């Protein structure tokens, strides 16, 4: 291991840093937004909503993220219908594909967590809201969801870190985020330790920052230990 290589390794990886952050944050937001309707479908009394939602989470949670990424990036482009559709500009770009896939993958995991929390909301809360004549929409927005999100805040923080780790897979579809950039630098210099340790340190720092952020949010919003 040579110390001289740490600086060039850092410069090489730095170029991927922004991409890693962009993929992580956009996938995370997409995942959280998509998770809510899936969770509501999973918790719904209607079988017509529940079955498709649970089939979705079963398949997405049952197969590797890498396969899903390859299906979306390499697989969908094979279909003429996709190539001629309005979505093609998005599905043609490896970065958008990575964001879409990681986001939809995270949505399945988050939806399961949210569903668990929805079931944890005491029955009396639903009954009281109904007795007060609240509409289902208001009941969800004002009574159920605030309790759900306050309860799952730590899980959402975890999910953000998992999404960050998942963003490394984008390098498998030619996106040169940090891990991809590190790998190319290793191929050029043959210095795996310096490079990957440098990349690892940056991932740990980002993870620590996210962890700190959610600790702060929890201190402010979480339901004190139930």
């Amino acid at each position, binding site marked *: 291991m040579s110390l001289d290589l740490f600086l060039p390794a850092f410069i090489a990886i730095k170029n991927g840093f922004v991409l890693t952050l962009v993929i992580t944050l956009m996938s995370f937001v997409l995942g959280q937004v998509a998770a809510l309707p899936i969770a509501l479908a999973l918790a719904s009394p209607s079988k017509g909503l529940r079955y498709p939602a649970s089939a979705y989470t*079963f398949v997405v949670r049952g*197969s590797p993220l890498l*396969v899903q990424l390859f*299906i979306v990036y*390499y697989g969908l482009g094979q279909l003429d219908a996709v190539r001629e559709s309005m979505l093609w500009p998005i599905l043609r770009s490896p970065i958008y594909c990575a964001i879409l896939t990681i986001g939809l993958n995270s949505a399945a995991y988050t939806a399961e967590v949210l569903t668990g929390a929805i079931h944890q909301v005491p029955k009396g809360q639903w009954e009281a809201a109904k007795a007060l004549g609240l509409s289902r929409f208001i009941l969800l927005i004002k009574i159920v969801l605030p309790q759900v999100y306050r309860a799952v805040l730590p899980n959402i923080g975890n999910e953000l*870190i998992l999404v960050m780790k998942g963003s490394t897979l984008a390098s498998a579809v030619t996106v040169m985020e940090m891990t991809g950039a590190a790998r190319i630098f290793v191929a050029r210099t043959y210095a795996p330790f310096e490079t990957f340790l440098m990349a690892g340190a940056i991932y*740990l720092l980002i993870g620590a920052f996210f962890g700190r952020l959610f600790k702060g949010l929890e201190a402010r919003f979480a339901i004190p230990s139930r």
Partner: protein
Amino acid sequence: MIEAVVQYFPQLLQGFVVTLTVAVGSFAFGLLLAVFLAPTAVYGPAPVRKIIAGYVGLIRGLPELLVIFLIFYGGTVFLTGLFGTYVEVNALTAGIAALTVVSAAYLTEILRGALLGVSSGQWEAALALGFRRPRAFRLIVLPQMMVNALPGLGNQWLVILKESALVSIVGLEELMRKSLVAAGATHQPLAFYLTAAALYVLVTGVSTLAINAYSRRLTTHLR
């Protein structure tokens, strides 16, 4: 589309066997390590406890793909430096080694939690009955720890199975790699990746059923 998959199916099955080998191998080695690391992390001397906690924290914070790259490329450089000649690390060994390092950390954390869940009265009763500590651990505490850990272990098995797909990126000829090659040769990526996904879902589905059945059997006394 179907003919292409049928034609390459024996190849995919070969890859599937490698996938299962990597997943079972790294889960088993990881569990073996964790069974030693977890009690050490709870009862060991403070510096050792800190080291184990550091290792677990480090691995949990790092992307799995990065750990695989570090062990795969780093392993080659390290062994080459050690022996003075170029050593090519076999992809299967490197894959199992990398995933073992990852799974051992998560499994240690699962077993540590499970161990803390065994009530201290169990230790005290065993010692009061004249068991020595190693024997009390093996016969009284360990079985209860494993029962507590079962849901976590089942989860981790599914995680490892899915993570084994990452080893294809460093060239191991497992299910993903075989699908990639077949997809390239036939220009039918969708068919092959969907087949691969179906095979993974099949294993995770069957595993989930088996884990649930087994944990129901193990916990009859708790209901």
